[in-house]
């Protein structure tokens, strides 16, 4: 919600002045609440208030409250795209670094941080309207590590395929449905060699747009 203001209408009616107090002034309380959204934009709202004639001077008290919390939310498309590029670059380095661990029997230990990083990024992009295709590609990539899929990353071509997909996420702007298709093709070829898992069949229900 962008800038929004509300007025408490119920407080507009002046109370009846007590007869014992001849100098009583009617009090009108007007509360204005400005709620700033995460994408601040200027806006203006006017509200007419009728102050009824009275024997004594009327006091109109206007309380304006700005709710700035949502404005600090980190959620603009540009911000989330920058987060995506940065984290994907870090994940790509982790994948490329697997070359030095490829012969380890417990390679899964080394692929665990990659899966966790992908999950963390998916979580961060969960509400991003413009990153639906990114999430789909990340889920496909994540799935290639699951159910024993990490074994394939002993092979250079497997690592190179993942790096190719990640580079795509770093360099393309925005990530389009065609990018999802391309990533699927790359990962599918990878899967055909060995695999226990099929990319794109995850347990999440995000729909790319």
């Amino acid at each position, binding site marked *: 919600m962008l800038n929004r203001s509300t007025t408490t209408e119920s407080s507009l009616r002046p109370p009846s002045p007590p007869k014992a107090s001849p100098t009583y002034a009617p009090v009108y309380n007007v509360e204005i609440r400005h709620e700033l959204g995460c994408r601040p934009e200027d806006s203006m709202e006017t509200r007419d208030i009728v102050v009824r004639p009275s024997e004594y001077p009327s006091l109109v008290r206007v309380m304006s409250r700005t709710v700035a919390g949502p404005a600090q939310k*980190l959620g603009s498309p540009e911000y989330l795209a*920058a987060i995506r590029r*940065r984290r994907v*670059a870090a994940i790509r380095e982790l994948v490329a670094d697997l070359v030095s661990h490829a012969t380890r029997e417990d390679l899964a230990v080394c692929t665990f941080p990659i899966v966790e990083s992908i999950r963390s990024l998916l979580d961060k992009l969960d509400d991003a309207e413009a990153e639906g295709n990114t999430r789909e590609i990340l889920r496909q990539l994540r799935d290639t590590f699951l159910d024993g899929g990490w074994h394939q990353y002993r092979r250079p071509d497997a690592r190179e395929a993942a790096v190719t997909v990640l580079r795509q996420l770093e360099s393309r702007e925005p990530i389009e449905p065609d990018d999802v298709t391309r990533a699927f093709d790359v990962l599918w070829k990878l899967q055909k060699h060995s695999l226990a898992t099929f990319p794109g069949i995850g347990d999440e229900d995000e729909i790319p747009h």
Partner: protein
Amino acid sequence: MWVICFGFSLGSTKAFWAKGIAVLADYSNRAVGYFAVDYDHQFQFAHKLADAAQALYARLKPVHLGVGPDLYIMRDPPRRLLAHIGSKKLYFQTLGSYQWTEFLTDIIASAKAGIETLGVRLFQRIGFRISAFLPLKMTHAEICDLAFGGYLVPKQDLADVAGPIDDLLVQLYGTRRSLKTRLSIAPQTAAQASASFLVDGNLEAVLEHKWLDPGLREFHERIAADSLWVDIDLYQTEKDSSLLEAFLEEAVPEAMRIIDAAVARLMGTV
């Protein structure tokens, strides 16, 4: 009388965070540029100053010429350019950064002519500076958040020294080839951008008429928004005056490259 100070800026609206896009090419109208040469006062300068100003004027061909105490002022509102030459300083200032690519030849030729006619042999300092207010389509809080991990260590690593951090200023000093560099980077709110721009002196001198020309007001309206402020100062000290041209030919593209790199680091396109 004109009061001379220092400052800079950039400006436009393209997805400059895509790799290979020059930020200043798109955002020239949100930047201010400065070029200044400082030299020691010599007795003979008093006799040569008028000739030096004439030599500078002949090559720069500004619209307006003014005279102040110990200096000549040249104003060129169509190019949003100000120049002055005095017995201790030669100075150029622009509203916008495009002048440093489109008119660099004129600026170099006029500066060289002025310096040579004045008989300056040694520069105490020669410097080129660009100050840009870059709209990244992000809030101040978002730019601030991205600065961590981009220019600074992760935010949580600084919690013990600063607590919850809601603003920052990064200054980096270094050397790039023959140039000393001072890079300042800061997320700015609309109020901060406005305030930092308004302290800049002299800019009214690039207007045709300071009350009627809306150039400065429009510039201020453009930059008064959440933005990334990038200020790059490239300089040399104790340099032979014959190196003026070489300095500008190196410093101008280098300043723009550094701004590109600073933005790319924030946006994750490095």
